[in-house]
């Protein structure tokens, strides 16, 4: 399977910043990070013998951008007509789209297959319909998942005629191909993410949030200024992609602003600190290889 081969040879699909946890302070300067980001591979730091932590920084303004009028989207990774060979995936995280849809507009009936598709509304309401008979509304605080598997057709529209809808759409390569298609959604108590990392997705149907066909865990947290928290990875071979929804953070010692993304792999724990009031972050822990 070609994608597995390519994931094995380059688990981030783009340039890697390498550093030991002890030397994170060397990578704190954003200008320096931007400069390094453009490089394909960074060699291990000379003289370092401890295991390396890999960082992958995507500044918000470096994302692909499309404006169709009714739809405006920022693509962290290559998607549709945005093709950047350096921006293909982070482990099994293949799509991270930051979408704005005009009132009453949306995506007509279209197919999906073999992908775990997660939608997280940030503002407004989305109306979903699919060929399995599901008709549903998702709103801020909800999370929706489709295991597309052998094939699913669906549509999604901004339900409201007087308000924009903003949402994140995230695609993960599935753990197993050709599973039976499945739709699910969950309403979460957003108060539970106040100064806390609230789990919104996992591989386990008995765990908090929705479940998917992949060894992935998603958390959202909304924090007071200066609040500090650690995230312990569920699986040591996984990586974490942090996406700042709102405000500013220091994550693993790296400064991030609104809509910046940071992939971190080869570590067991990640430290976060909010640098603004009501700062909100999405953490996506994902396998770095497929299968």
């Amino acid at each position, binding site marked *: *399977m*070609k*994608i*597995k*081969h390519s994931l*094995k040879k380059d688990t981030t699909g783009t340039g890697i910043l390498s550093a030991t946890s002890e030397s994170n302070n060397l990578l704190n300067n954003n200008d320096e990070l931007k400069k390094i980001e453009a490089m394909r591979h960074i060699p291990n730091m000379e003289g370092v013998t401890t295991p390396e932590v890999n960082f992958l920084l995507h500044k918000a303004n470096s994302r692909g951008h499309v404006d169709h009028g009714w739809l405006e989207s920022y693509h962290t990774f*290559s*998607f*549709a*007509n*945005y*093709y950047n*060979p350096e921006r*293909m995936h982070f482990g099994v995280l*293949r*799509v991270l789209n930051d979408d704005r849809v005009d009132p009453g507009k949306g995506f007509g009936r*279209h*197919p*999906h*297959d*073999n*992908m775990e598709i997660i939608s997280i509304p940030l503002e407004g309401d989305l109306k979903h319909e699919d060929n399995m008979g599901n008709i549903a509304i998702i709103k801020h605080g909800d999370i929706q998942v489709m295991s*597309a*598997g*052998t*094939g*699913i*057709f669906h549509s999604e529209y901004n339900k409201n005629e007087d308000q924009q809808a903003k949402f994140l759409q995230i*695609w993960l*390569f599935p753990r*197993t*191909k*050709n599973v039976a298609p499945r739709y699910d959604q969950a309403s979460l108590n957003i108060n539970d993410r106040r100064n806390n990392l609230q789990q919104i997705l996992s591989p386990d149907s008995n765990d908090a949030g929705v479940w998917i066909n992949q060894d992935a865990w998603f958390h959202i947290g909304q924090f007071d200024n200066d609040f500090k928290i650690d995230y312990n990875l569920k699986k040591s071979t996984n990586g974490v992609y942090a996406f700042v929804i709102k405000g500013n953070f220091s994550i693993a010692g790296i400064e991030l602003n609104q809509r910046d993304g940071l992939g971190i792999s080869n570590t067991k724990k990640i430290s976060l600190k909010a640098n603004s009031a009501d700062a909100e972050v999405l953490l996506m822990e994902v396998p770095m290889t*497929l*299968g």
Partner: protein
Amino acid sequence: MKKQILVIGRHGEILQTVLRLINANEQWEAKGTLEDAEAIRIFDRFSFDLILLTNGISEHCENSLRLYFTDKRPTVNIVQHYGGGSGLLTTEILQALSEPAVSASSHQIK
């Protein structure tokens, strides 16, 4: 000259969608089938730059197809299409066409 693409899948409506999307690109031309035997007949008759495997193909069938294609034409590129629509299709094709083929034996097929 248009790049020639063979698409194989098991879901008729998704296959038609993928073919329509590929053929909308003036630099690409796609043929598609739901049947492995027909895929082999088409493969033997025409010259393809890329073979795209879409959904529903069993591991056994996928392995057999990969072995047949690479045995007959080691340089042909074979990739799995994910997502079922326009989201990843263009980038998958562009990436595949920019890379040398990888032999079937070197793939780690799930």
